[in-house]
């Protein structure tokens, strides 16, 4: 296998923008389907509501997914923000503050990819991105937007922790697996991630 592979270009092409948008839109569809069954899921948390944060990673997966597929600066932020806008337009979320949440959650993943200078898209990077996305999101909800102001300090801490763990799995591991699955189908042919399925989990592509 050639090692030259794909040279990263920082600028976004039209195809990058449109596919990133479609990823956010598909996420919106999944949110929509998820909303229909969310009622049942959340019933399970009536006994201990802060545990609902364990499934909050669900709202975060567009961030890492976008970054892993598009591999351009800003992809995590763009996909998460657009997915948030779509769920705001569908009226299924928390109004305007959902944009703020989307921005912050996307930023959490974005800083991780920026820290590796958009060159590594390995499993550890994806897990960390999901974790940070959950941490940023949970922290904002607990302490900045203060949705749960009346929670005890332990409950607030628990919320942040649960959301980080949830983010790592649902918004880190799953997007990484999804990217490999997508690359295997050949659907990513026009993108920098087209060979994602051939990369190692830990070392990624050699360059």
């Amino acid at each position: 296998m050639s090692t030259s592979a794909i040279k990263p270009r920082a600028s976004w092409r039209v195809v990058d923008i449109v596919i990133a948008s479609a990823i956010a839109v598909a996420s919106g569809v999944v949110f929509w389907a998820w909303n229909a069954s969310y009622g049942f899921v959340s019933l399970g948390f009536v006994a201990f509501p802060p545990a609902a944060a364990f499934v909050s990673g669900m709202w975060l997966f567009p961030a890492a997914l976008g970054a892993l597929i598009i591999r351009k600066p800003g992809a995590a932020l763009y996909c998460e923000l657009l997915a948030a806008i779509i769920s705001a337009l569908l009226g299924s979320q928390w109004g305007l503050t959902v944009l703020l949440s989307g921005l912050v959650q996307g930023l959490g993943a974005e800083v991780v990819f920026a820290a590796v200078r958009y060159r590594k898209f390995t499993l550890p990077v994806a897990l960390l991105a999901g974790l940070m996305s959950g941490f940023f999101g949970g922290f904002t909800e607990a302490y900045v937007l203060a949705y749960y102001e009346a929670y005890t300090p332990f409950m607030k801490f628990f919320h942040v922790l649960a959301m980080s763990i949830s983010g790592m799995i649902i918004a880190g591991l799953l997007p990484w697996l999804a990217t490999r699955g997508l690359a295997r189908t050949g659907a990513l042919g026009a993108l920098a991630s087209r060979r994602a399925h051939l990369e190692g989990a830990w070392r990624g592509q050699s360059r």
Partner: protein
Amino acid sequence: MSAGLGEQRPATVHTQAVAVSAEDFGWRHAERERPALQGLNLSIPAGQKVLLLGPSGAGKSTLLYALAGILEVDELSEASGALRVGGQDVFTAKQPVGLMQQDPETQIVQSRVVDDVAFGAENLGVDPELIRERITPALQAVGLGALDGEHRTAHLSGGQKQRLALAGILAMEPGLMLLDEPTANIDPEGVPALRDAVLSAAESTGATLIVVEHRLEAWADAVDRVVVLAPGGGVAHDVDPQALFTDRQLRAELSAAGLWVPGIVPETTVFAGTPGAELLHAQDLVAARSARAPKTAAVDLKIRAGAAYCIRGANGAGKSTLALTLGGLLEPSSGTLRASEDFAGELSEQPFSWKAGKLIARIGTVFQEPEHQFVTQSVREELEFAPRRAHAADPAAPAFDEERIAARVDQLLRRLRLEDLAEANPFTLSGGEKRRLSVATVLAADPQVLILDEPTFGQDANTWRELVQLLIEALEAGTAVIAVTHDEQFSAALAAQELQLPAPRETSEATRRPGPMLDAPLGESWLAGINPLAKLAAVAAATLPLVSTMDWVSASVIIVATLVALPLAGLRLLSFLRRAWPLLAAGAVAGWGVALVGEDAGRILLHLGVFTVTEGSVAAGAATGLRAIGLAIPMVLLVASTNPSDLGGALSQQLRVPHRFVLGALAGMRLLGLLTEEFTTLALARRARGVGNFGSPLQRLRAQLGQCLALLVQAVRRASRLAVTMEAKGFGTGERTWIRSVHFGLRDLLVIVAGVVLGAGAIAAALGAGTFHLVWS
């Protein structure tokens, strides 16, 4: 904001036709070993109409992409020779070239008809006044003159979408129009109208026209010249169109390459069996996608072993819905569908009640899009999947022991000539291979009834022949075959009994699409006329101050103000509740959470295990819930009165958000309805493969995730094609113009002021009532 289409003008769209010339032109895509095109020499004078043919892989699409100027040049791709349009090199040329591809869904970029026609011309920076003058003649030239400019593009049929895309191309006034299999993905009844639209457009503008098609009949009489590309590179034939009717050798050669040559039907054996025992009996059967969806007419039908049936009928008659119902995938809306005793075996007589694993061993359904039904990573696993599922559901059935499965899979691989591709990922196969595989995967479970939705749609002559042969073999083995199809040659070859499904009793546009819709037409409300950014600013000013405090007074002020403002957005209380109920529910859940685990104070109201609900925690819960609702519901006013496209236009024109991202996002958002529909179809298509509601929670979760991944594949595929369309329409290259200009006036300012006053008033009320409680303290 309206586009102001202006008065009816005489149909005039001017262009300057351009010539095309290739000198030893070649192109190799990045990361491919072989060039897609090589040593091509061709000269097309300005204004000529050319039908471009060739076997698959001869580089027809690559040539069109090159002419459209959208081949991606980077350090890994390689061009040789020269290719010129109007004397300019294609890689540097700046003149407009129109390109239309086969998937109607991705030829449309915008959600409203006028916007879509204008899109390309806007990208080219044409003066908006001039674009508005071009819109009506362009729509008239393609036979869509009767459409309202505000009509939603999502509601057009496939053929209409293609014609709309053509109108958008005309509005760019291109000197060259390129059509890549424009009729391959639309219903046969839409083909003549589209073909005539193309020809009249070419006629009236005089533009040079190059059409790639694999069904030659519609075009053979209409073009000036036929060029056949050779597989290795270069031109194999360059002839007069009459040769398609008279040159026997050429006809034979093209037919062998899989093209549909006028008057040649691919040869298959002739099926002449006699029907066997009755398997299914439909009585007064009415099918519908859901309780609220349109219903089909009532059908009486007996399905017998070893017999073929074709379901025909106009668009919207519900042919596919009926097929899904016959396939046991949808519950009959009314009437009955009964399986005979022998056929049902130990199961009940209603196929819909059968578990997926049992269903697939009896009734197999092949969906129109093969990719919807692929569930594994390789061709071999794909073939093994259904018999394994059938075995798991019925371990006693001898037909599905490991040895027989292996033998059957090997036999199918040989039969389909897919042995070399046994380990390939199904998604990477060619279109024809995918179609054959999708039929074989269902046949692998040896069902006695096989149902196919438009199996020959868009297929080349070779795939058609192999498919028909495969189905004839199934018929001879005693399988009943039911197909939804327009294809008369197909039903003749299978000696099929035809069922004409009459038009449905009722259709309404509102019930056509399930799920969410982002750009439903807005009423004539007062707020609908307000600048979208002003509304956004007002919502922000009114709600964001609420973030600072946790109290019920400030939240209540905003909630009451929102309810009072409902008429301004044209909302009644009931339609508001329909939009807002998830927000209200979420607020209630948040409130309950706090009441339960919030810090306790005051009298104890309830003991629940380790938690106690107290007066203090209930008050905190109420404040939390009301605040969540107050933060959320003003957004409903904005959403109900704002078209996302207008919001995007305002963001880009007034806030200078880069238009590439704004319009890219809007184009992606147009896919929402489509992807939602696809998600629903995927659930059925995968159930038809035996994936579905069974097994442990872990297996169900895996099935759910698999469905999400399958949706992503389709999303990325559609987006890739959409991106090509947008690039071909000059998107993202330079400064663009907008036919919808955005205004900011006194009323808009008033709305912002109202938002600010509300936000400040809410906080002041809380301070006055003494309930203000800073959340960061």
